[in-house]
């Protein structure tokens, strides 16, 4: 392994070069600000809630009427009819495919310790958006990446409403059950 070089050693090397040394001195304040940064990033779940504030705002303009669609479940791997002789559902990751207008949502649900994590991809026209899971006052949110992929923070078992917002379109999946046993 190559030996590490401390910042002080780097400075020593630069001091040996008069031109670089003069330059470095002029940057000292800048370097100090970077090296001694005291800032702290907001935790991801709180950040996710802040990102959602604009779309939740009553004051945000609505150039067109908001189109709300209820997604239809096209496929749920945990609700497949049992084959002859099979007495229990598969307990591996759960895959759900949802349809809503010109969009499909590919949901993957995986156990994460005692919690459940929802991730997946929105298939259809490329558009920025955000997806949320809500149960009562509790809500988690994630934004879509340019490929329409998302990863929501893990949540406890329960019955949630999943909401996808892209522009003036809102796709809702009511009563999404997350947990080891689904009814």
């Amino acid at each position, binding site marked *: 392994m*190559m*030996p*590490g*070089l*401390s*910042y002080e050693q*780097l400075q020593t*090397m*630069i001091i040996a*070069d008069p031109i*670089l040394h*003069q*330059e*470095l*001195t*002029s*940057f000292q*304040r*800048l*370097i100090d*600000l*970077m*090296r001694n*940064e*005291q*800032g*702290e*990033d*907001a*935790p991801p779940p*709180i*950040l996710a*809630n*802040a*990102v959602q*504030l*604009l*779309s939740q*705002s009553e*004051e*945000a*303009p*609505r*150039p067109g009427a908001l189109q709300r669609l209820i997604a239809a479940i096209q496929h749920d791997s945990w609700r497949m009819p049992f084959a002859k002789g099979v007495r229990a559902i598969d307990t591996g990751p759960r895959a759900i495919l949802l349809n809503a207008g010109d969009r499909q949502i590919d949901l993957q649900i995986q156990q994460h310790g005692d919690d459940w994590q929802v991730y997946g991809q929105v298939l259809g026209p490329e558009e*920025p*958006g*955000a997806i949320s899971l809500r149960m009562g006052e509790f809500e988690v949110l994630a*934004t879509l990446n340019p490929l329409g992929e998302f990863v929501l923070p893990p949540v406890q078992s329960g019955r949630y409403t999943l909401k996808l*917002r892209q522009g003036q379109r809102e796709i809702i999946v009511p009563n999404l059950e997350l947990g080891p046993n689904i009814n």
Partner: protein
Amino acid sequence: MLMTPSDTALVSACQEGDIQAWERLVLRYQRLVYSIARQAGLPKESTANIFLRVFRRFVEAIHSPEQPEQVRNWLILTAQQETLRAAQLESGLAQNLQAEALTTLEEQQLVRQAWSELEQPCRQLLQLLFYSDEQFSTAQLAVLLHLAEERILPMCVQCLGQLRERLPELSSRHTLSIAT
């Protein structure tokens, strides 16, 4: 040179309901707002509430006739107000952030934002040198950045120069623009 939208452009886009512009604004200032509340010594739960209140008020402000022109100043002021309000409610648990510490936080936010707008390999080089807890030799940096080892130090100076060019406001406050 990467062109990043100004605060004013992002606020205008937010007024049109652009969720992506809002996300950029939140990501640009989240660290500053969160740190102001956090450094006041409040518990994490209170800090989270302050953080969300500040951005909720910001949403209201950008849709009001008196929308904030100076986004950073507005957020700093509002974060301070909300922190003091929370501290009063929690009976003096928090300490008001000293002006000097606040200035440093603001300057560090300016530097981080300017750094995030640098192109590669400068962004990575400065990150490895000054934002990372690890220490790297010039040989390691050369491997990581696919550069000749003798290029590392001159490039460091060149990248710091590019960073400083993006910080005219900071330069006017301090002596960052000392002639070389």
